[in-house]
């Protein structure tokens, strides 16, 4: 039923697709982490005005689908004169979506650090910067890490919709092969395997990191 020679022949396409998925994801997620960190810093530091802007951004980003965000960026904005490449749209879209998720995870991490920990730092004579670097961030990172890893996996998965703006990622290859050769099973098989190869290790490394940085347990 399954044509193995087909799979052997087209596996390289999926490698290319996987590379595209990874490229978009790596840049998108890196940017999302930066956006998230900035937003989390603004929120925890309670900077007026900027804080309200961040709130609005988070709501918009969390409550609209990435696909629609992408369509808007890719097909909508050109009508205003901004023609961005598909790669740019995908990375910006992923960062726009991911930024709010990352911000939430990081903010939760910072808020989970007990006040008494900062107070101890004060009593020990730490400066504000020393307190942030040596006390708050390491502990916040430990609580935020599971959320951040979950977001990384979530964003890689979400990146599958970039095929809609003609980026040749894993989903694109699948749809292509189904459309051209009607080899549905083989394509779906390759699709599942490719995603497992990309996401399983991340998921495993993620839980390993979580355990390693969980100061309270184990």
């Amino acid at each position, binding site marked *: 039923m399954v044509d193995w020679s087909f799979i052997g022949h087209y596996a390289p396409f999926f490698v290319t697709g996987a590379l595209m998925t990874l490229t978009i994801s790596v840049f998108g997620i890196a940017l999302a982490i930066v956006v998230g960190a900035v937003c989390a810093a603004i929120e925890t530091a309670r900077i007026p005005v900027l804080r309200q802007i961040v709130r609005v951004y988070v709501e918009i980003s969390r409550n609209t689908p990435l696909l629609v965000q992408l369509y808007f960026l890719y097909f909508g904005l050109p009508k205003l004169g901004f023609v961005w490449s598909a790669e740019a749209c995908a990375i910006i879209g992923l960062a726009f979506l991911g930024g709010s998720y990352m911000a939430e995870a990081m903010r939760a991490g910072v808020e989970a650090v007990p006040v008494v920990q900062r107070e101890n730092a004060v009593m020990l*004579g730490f400066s504000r910067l020393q307190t942030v670097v040596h006390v708050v961030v390491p*502990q916040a990172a430990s609580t935020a890490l599971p959320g951040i890893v979950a977001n990384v996996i979530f964003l890689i998965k979400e990146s599958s919709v970039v095929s809609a703006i003609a980026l040749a990622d894993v989903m694109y290859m699948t749809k292509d092969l189904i459309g051209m050769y009607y080899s549905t099973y083989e394509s779906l098989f390759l699709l599942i395997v490719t995603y497992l190869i990309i996401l399983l290790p991340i998921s495993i490394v993620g839980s390993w990191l979580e355990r390693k940085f969980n*100061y309270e347990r184990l």
Partner: protein
Amino acid sequence: MTEQQFRGLEVRDLVKKYPKAERNVFDGISFDVPKGQVLVIVGPSGSGKSTLLRTVAGLEPIQGGTIALDGDVLETGKPGTEKAGRSKRPSALRTRIGMVFQSYDLFPNKTVLGNITMAPVLVQKRKKADVEAEAMALLERVGLADRADAKPHELSGGQRQRVAICRALILHPEVLLLDEITAALDPEMVREVLDVVLDLADDGQTMLIVTHEMQFARAVADRIVMIEDGRIVERSTDPDEFFAHPKTERAREFLHTFEFERRRKHEDGEPIREFEDVD
């Protein structure tokens, strides 16, 4: 008001109000802790004991009065500063006062040794090797030399509090503030922690202690203050006398909370069998 020759902690006319609170927690209270002595503060829950320690530590802004150490003014109250946040006291002044809190609040990502050596290395820029040697000596003293490389979560509550004391001591604070440091511990752990505190008192460490362990308070105190609703109800430089014969009715009532009387004798008809010798 400060005499030039007085050494120790002086608190004068302290006024403290929390933002949004209806009334002041303190409306002008004063006391001293002479160098080398231990002042124990007792009082019912919500009376302001923790707040008092926190203002001395600089964790809470004050709205009136002064706090001075060896004649150096640490804090001068200003009205309207309820929301001002922590005191801007410079690091060098801050480290002259040490504090240990109720919760097990070691830095979870550092080892025991790392917790103790962090501040002297980062803040006082002392040499790491020197600091570590001193830290080991302190750990030895509190009976934890063998746990230097353990992470906080591997320690019992009592062990953590002893490490927290070492972490404060290594900065050689002139005054050490202890806020119910045994409230969350099992009795045996209470003992091991309080033994360390008694030991420090013997060595002449100036301390300001809040505790609900009356027996311990009596043993460790040089002076005792009972507060209620932010006011000093009774104070004494003779703890034995305070516990045996409190002068005020309120103190008597309060101390009574810690005593239970047998109120019944069994005269009912059940056959009270002796225990069998089964083990």
